[in-house]
């Protein structure tokens, strides 16, 4: 039905699926983060003698670096969806809302670059 109404003056003005994409992305990133959380939580709770060697050693492995990066990037996408929802719910002024959304995007992009720097410093 949607494909039929997608072109011209009679196109569907709702149901452009913008929301669904973000909704799904938020869920998928949540699953990735949940797995990462369980790994870190278990190693924190069962670990003894928290040392630099042990901690940095975990992040020295390439697979864990990449897993960490994917998780953090997922976190930033997840945070974008959530924070955008907050701005949309509470900020009535369109100008201020646009400013806050852009600030959120730039800040999360900066966080992503910072994360790459941190992970590859080990």
């Amino acid at each position, binding site marked *: 039905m949607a494909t039929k109404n997608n072109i011209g003056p009679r196109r569907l003005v709702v149901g452009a699926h913008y929301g669904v994409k973000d909704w799904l992305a938020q869920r998928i990133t949540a699953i990735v983060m*949940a797995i990462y959380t369980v790994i870190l939580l278990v190693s924190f709770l069962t670990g003894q003698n928290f040392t630099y060697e042990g901690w940095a050693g975990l992040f020295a492995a390439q697979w864990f670096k990449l897993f960490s990066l994917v998780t953090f990037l997922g976190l930033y996408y997840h945070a974008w969806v959530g924070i955008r929802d907050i701005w949309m719910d509470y900020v009535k002024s369109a100008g201020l809302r646009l400013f806050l959304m852009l600030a959120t995007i730039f800040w999360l992009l900066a966080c992503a670059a*910072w994360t790459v720097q941190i992970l590859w410093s080990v």
Partner: protein
Amino acid sequence: MSEAVREAKQKGRPEFRNIGITDITGKYRMPPSAIVSILHRISGAGLFLALPFLLYLFQQSLLSESSFGYFAGIVSHPLAKLVLLGLSWAYLHHFVAGIRHLFMDNHFALDKDAAQSTARWVLIISLALTLLVGLKLFGVF
């Protein structure tokens, strides 16, 4: 709304119009699911705001042996431990409430009673996990 429902007004029930924050926090009796929901939002926003602090600590912990010592110094301060304990609760609440969300997305526990019961469990489990992290953080085990 049908006429029948509109006319059968419940006696003695408070009515809320143009609700504001004081109605929600002071007059409503929020069900467990509502408490979990608003805490999910607050904890998420708090974690977002705490990102620079957490990334800074993360960086110090990994950069070098000496920066790790600096990190350990910050984290060993009781005040920092309290802040980290608060953030741990925020993270764990968001985590457990999020898992409830994922189950509900897949049509589990959607009816009224089940939803309130799982919401209660979210509050209990996240506090229990925070307690566990806190005991570890303050060196009990």
